[in-house]
């Protein structure tokens, strides 16, 4: 009895060691309405994991809970073996879990290079140096330019983010996120609102960026999901409906009804 419990807990810890992010019983209620209900989620280290589901399923709310933008009503979140349920967004980010937003989130009045440099300052430790000239952050320019090059924005270095096209804004966001060298990257609909011509390059970019790190992404475009993702969790009405790889999930009758009967994407 005692031995079997010990064995069980040992296999469970072994499994958790493979998972960089584990959420248990995650619940968020807005004035009685549960946007996320008892969600269990385990994201394997080094994988690209997708969170899909119809509009209003609770995907963004899940992201907000995982990155501590929202406090969960119930449930625990463990990141890399550490319980982060009580930490703040900025603390979670400094531990290596960084998110992007569903609506594009650049700093419109700053140039592309400055956008990335702000993120680089997070680790560089100059954020409060108000008495120094910008020469103090000049050493960051090389890395900033490298990241811009990586996402194909080398030519837009000195253009303010407001003047960039939508696709380029999203690429800039990825560069800014990568600047923190996150171990886990959460991307909320990185291809939403994009024209066909931009979806391919962004998908390729995510694939590149995922090397050596874990990516959790919300995505409506199923062809993007099928090419990128190792594992898929389907949410509906705030609850997990199915989980598995693309072949398994797309054959699951409950998922088929949810997508056919639900809001057409």
């Amino acid at each position: 009895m005692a031995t079997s419990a010990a064995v069980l807990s040992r296999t469970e810890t072994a499994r958790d060691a493979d998972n960089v992010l584990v959420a248990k019983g995650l619940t968020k209620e807005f004035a009685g309405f549960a946007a996320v209900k008892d969600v269990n989620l385990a994201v394997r280290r080094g994988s690209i994991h997708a969170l899909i589901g119809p509009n209003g399923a609770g995907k963004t709310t899940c992201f907000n809970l995982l990155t501590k933008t929202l406090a969960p009503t119930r449930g625990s979140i463990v990141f890399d073996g550490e319980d982060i349920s009580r930490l703040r967004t900025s603390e979670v980010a400094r531990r290596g879990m960084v998110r992007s937003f569903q609506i594009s989130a650049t700093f419109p009045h700053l140039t592309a290079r400055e956008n990335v440099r702000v993120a680089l300052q997070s680790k560089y430790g100059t954020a409060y140096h108000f008495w120094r000239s910008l020469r103090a952050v000049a050493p960051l320019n090389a890395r900033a330019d490298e990241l811009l090059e990586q996402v194909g924005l080398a030519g837009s270095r000195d253009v303010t983010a407001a003047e960039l096209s939508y696709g380029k804004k999203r690429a800039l966001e990825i560069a800014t996120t990568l600047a923190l060298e996150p171990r886990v990257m959460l991307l909320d609909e990185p291809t939403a609102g994009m024209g066909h011509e931009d979806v391919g390059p962004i998908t390729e970019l995510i694939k590149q960026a995922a090397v050596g790190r874990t990516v959790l992404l919300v995505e409506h475009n199923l062809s993007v999901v099928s090419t990128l993702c190792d594992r898929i969790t389907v949410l509906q009405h705030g609850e997990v409906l199915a989980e598995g790889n693309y072949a398994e999930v797309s054959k699951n009758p409950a998922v088929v009804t949810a997508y056919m009967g639900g809001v057409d994407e």
Partner: protein
Amino acid sequence: MVRLLLLAVVAVLAIAAPFYFYSVTLMTVMCFVIFACSFNLLLGYTGLLCFGHAMFFGGGAYITGQILKATPISTELAILGGGAAAGLLGLVIGYLTMRRQGIQFAMITLAFSQFIYFIFLQAPFTGGEDGMQAIPRNDLFGFVDITSNSTLYYVVLAITALCVFVYYRVVHSPYGEVLKAVRDNQPRVESLGFDPEKIKLVAFIISASMAGVAGGMKAVVYQFATLTDASWPISGEVILMTLLGGLGTLVGPVFGAAGIILLNDYLAGFGEWALVSQGVILLVVIVFFRRGIVGELSALVRYLRRRNRTEAPAAQPAAATSGH
């Protein structure tokens, strides 16, 4: 190079100005230039609308005045003391309000400034309704006599230059870059591992200190400090100056402050008309010149440059592309 030349021209004009204009008016303009810069640091570069900025201006004036009246401490240190006191007040009020955003923040700062105003009204050292009178101008550095306005002018000019430099430095610092990012998108800055509330608090303290220095200087120039300095019309005036000059432009506050002070001076004899004209100006700026004087001018310069750039290459092969 052009900038250096421009700076030199401004310096020469500033040094020669008291020979052509009334020095007290010029000194008033400079006090409000600093005040407006401090306000622009908040509204233009941090995105915080403070409706009670006069509490720092008035606080600086009273503290500087009190130091000069009660002690033999030299004038420049007394002004610094006014700035430090205002900065401390900024720390406390900023700490209590920084969670709030937008109109909520504006309203809470207004409430706090009314509260501070009430304290100044009741506190014995301020002289209540009568104000603090006969503030002496203690010797600068303990040995330079500054009782004459023509000497004081250069002291005020030097302090103003220093404050504008500090303001410039903050805006163009590594911190300034993060500050602008907070203004543009606070949640994103937080998601990148910063603590935006702390970042904004630092800006609030710097801004309050600068406003305190401005108030302290005004107390030295006029040799009195009154409740008016801490009252909401002053808070309103600095908003007007900043908007008129151009929000989030570096030299906008300079033009805005000069414009409003000179206009007030000119209209002083017309009583209520000064207020009416301010209202009209605010309306015109909001409706037609959203970017303020400096904002509109630099937009015009940018437009002209762009037109030149697109015309220049088009001019040469004009014959070849005339088919268009």
